[in-house]
């Protein structure tokens, strides 16, 4: 494993480095169990969510989480987002960003170590590999073994299992974009859209390649996050640390030379053997460390065996290390987590969340948008009046039909009528019904005397004519010839 380290850093001299083999050994311990839980939760959320039903009445789909691209709607339980409300999605992304900053400032690369899909799926693939090929040593032996029926059988089984996971992963993804039960039936009977199959194909390929072949290479060479997170970490963020002042000098096994002082590290290489990225944490913090904490479990196991206190490798902040090195006591964990930087991040995160919730709660589900036609801006009519045209859209975002009334205000003497009707129908208001979860678009003419007071705040207004009155208003312009000609 040390040689692989050399390869990556160029000590070997070559301009290109082959991927060092990594055969992480299975390990058990506190952090491994935590990882199991996180893995179970994230994978369950991913695979099960599309199958959760949510009743929205007859006019909307009953899938709890659905990105309906064809009808341009996003459903999330009781929340329904229309394309013009996409800022909510932007808000979610902002929250995700701040959340990552918060997480990194407090617990370092916890995202990388526990929740990143690359980590979760690689972990899953590693378990499958161990289940078929055996643990680390068996895997190394198998790799060196000559070709045989048994070896081929194992290889075929392993790759078939990986591909199956890949297909399931890709398959689960597309269920977020269509009614899951219907789509599954269509998929099986071969009637689903080609894009569904090609999406599964692409995601199967990426899952298989990234989880089976690329693994830590994704983190080390492809992912931007390790580069960004080094700017987000500070001297009080928790990272996985080898406490060299306690471990060095290492003793080989338990055979200690009489009279020579040795550290706690017995150089058993357990921490290296379990590392999914194949590095040696004892070389200090490094980009390739995703802080999965498995080396902590491995080392704790060993310390327990030789009767030394746990935590030779442990989560620690840079500041704590400095203190401990000098023999002091580390800052209590509460003070590490609660400090101005993390509190500010947390405050921001909560503020964005609360603002979004508040605006979600306050939004009306009746919306008016008005676009004035620009070519031509106005038309002189033979009656002497001037006519402007508008494209008026009324969005009814509720799952029931709604009768509405459109009116104009702020323009004396103005009348309006639908461009498909004759001017005889011109009036001050216009009434029609907007279907459930639909947009009604009308091209509306407004005519007014050629001259008059400049319309300061000419606006359209929509009101619902039902038991739950909602209104919306949109200001626009009314243009007239500039001169009296």
């Amino acid at each position, binding site marked *: 494993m040390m040689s692989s380290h*050399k*390869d*990556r*850093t*160029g*000590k*070997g*001299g*070559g*301009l*290109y*480095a*082959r*991927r060092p083999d990594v055969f992480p050994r299975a390990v058990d311990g506190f952090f491994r169990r935590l990882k199991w839980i996180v893995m179970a939760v994230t994978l369950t959320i991913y695979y099960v969510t599309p199958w959760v039903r949510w009743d929205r009445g007859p006019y909307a789909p009953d899938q709890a989480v659905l990105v309906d691209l064809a009808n341009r709607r996003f459903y999330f339980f009781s929340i329904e987002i229309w394309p013009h409300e996409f800022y909510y999605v932007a808000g979610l992304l902002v929250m995700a960003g701040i959340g990552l900053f918060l997480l990194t400032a407090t617990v370092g690369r916890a995202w990388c170590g526990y929740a990143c899909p690359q980590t979760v799926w690689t972990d899953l693939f590693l378990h499958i590999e161990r289940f078929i090929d055996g643990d680390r040593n068996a895997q190394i032996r198998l790799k060196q073994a000559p070709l045989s029926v048994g070896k081929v059988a194992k290889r075929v089984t392993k790759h078939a299992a990986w591909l199956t996971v890949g297909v399931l992963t890709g398959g689960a993804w597309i269920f977020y974009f269509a009614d899951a039960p219907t789509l599954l039936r269509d998929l099986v009977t071969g009637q689903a859209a080609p894009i569904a199959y090609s999406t599964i194909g692409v995601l199967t390929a990426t899952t298989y390649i990234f989880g089976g072949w690329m693994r830590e*290479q994704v983190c080390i*060479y492809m992912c931007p996050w390790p580069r960004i997170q080094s700017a987000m970490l500070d001297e009080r963020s928790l990272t996985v640390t080898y406490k060299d002042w306690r471990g060095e000098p290492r003793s080989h096994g338990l055979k200690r030379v009489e009279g020579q002082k040795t550290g706690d590290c017995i150089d058993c290489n357990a921490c290296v053997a379990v590392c999914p990225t194949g590095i040696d944490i004892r070389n200090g913090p490094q980009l390739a460390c995703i802080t999965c904490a498995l080396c902590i479990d491995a080392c704790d196991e060993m310390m327990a065996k030789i009767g030394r206190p746990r935590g030779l490798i442990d989560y620690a902040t840079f500041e704590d290390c400095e203190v401990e090195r000098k023999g002091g006591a580390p800052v209590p964990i509460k003070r590490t987590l609660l400090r101005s930087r993390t509190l500010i991040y947390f405050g921001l995160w909560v503020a964005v969340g609360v603002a979004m919730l508040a605006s979600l709660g306050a939004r009306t589900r009746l919306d008016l948008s008005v676009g004035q036609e*620009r*070519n*031509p801006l106005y*038309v*002189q*009519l*033979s*009656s*002497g009046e001037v*006519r402007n*045209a508008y494209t008026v859209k009324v969005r009814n975002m509720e799952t029931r039909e709604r009768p509405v009334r459109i009116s104009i205000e702020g323009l004396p003497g103005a009348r309006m009528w639908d*461009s*498909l009707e004759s001017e005889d129908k011109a009036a001050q208001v216009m009434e029609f019904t907007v279907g459930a979860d639909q947009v009604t678009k009308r091209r509306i*003419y407004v005519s007014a005397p*050629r001259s008059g007071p400049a319309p300061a705040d000419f606006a359209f207004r929509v009101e619902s004519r039902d038991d739950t009155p909602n209104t919306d208003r949109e200001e626009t312009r009314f243009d007239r010839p500039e001169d009296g*000609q």
Partner: protein
Amino acid sequence: MSDEETKAIDPATGSEIKNHEWDGIRELNTPLPRWWLWTFYACIVFAIGYCVVYPAIPLVENATAGTFGWTSRGALDKEMAAAEAGRAATNKALAETPIEAIDPNSPLMRAAVEGGRAAFKVNCVQCHGSGAAGSPGYPNLNDDDWLWGGDIKTVYQTIRHGIRQPGDDLTRVSQMPAFGRDQLLTPVQIDDVVSYVRYLSKQEKPSQSAARGKALFAANCAACHGNDAKGGRQFGAPNLTDPIWLYGGSRDALTQTVTNARAGVMPSWEGRLDPVTVKMLAAYVHQLGGGE
């Protein structure tokens, strides 16, 4: 590779220091993963294949054709043919239905309007403007003022045969006399007629000149423009009482008009465009806002 001893190692990173040096800046060797190199080779292979099957290498006159025989022109032709085929049913229905029989709210009418919109942008905007708002001499098609009539059948007739189109027997023709140039009226009389017309269109207050012009109008203009000056569509004679002026309603413009006469022209589109397109144009123009 030679033995490690001869290599300089950077203490901070543990990487080998290469021999290159620029102004004291030396380079570390951070090796690229080998699979990255493979993706690079794969790109090269792909590029070679791409150059073989698609047009790639520019020559003096043209470029290598590529084994797929693909050209952007060919791709366009195919798309156009497909679009044409997709429109076949609509076009057939349009060709067979008389224009006044198309239901204004039918999908067929909507298709006709959209087709007309596209054809208008190519053939008509040069004079009428992209919003069909016209300009002096070229009528605004959005308003409700029509020289020759604004119901859909009449608009269709006008587009088919044009206005004053030589060689088309059904074209719209009329001729306004050049009252000044041909000395039918004296400049003073023309002035009076202009006053009267401007009074009719509420641009001027009543005056003696206008009163004199009234008699001159009845004798010289009413035959076409009507006694009430509201125009006569059989002659394409405009309504002179409204605020819409094709050549301008100022004294200068009107004096010009009465002195030298006006005779706008429009090509007849039948024969230049296919019959369905002409029908579509009529449908489009009719729904612009002034259709009767």
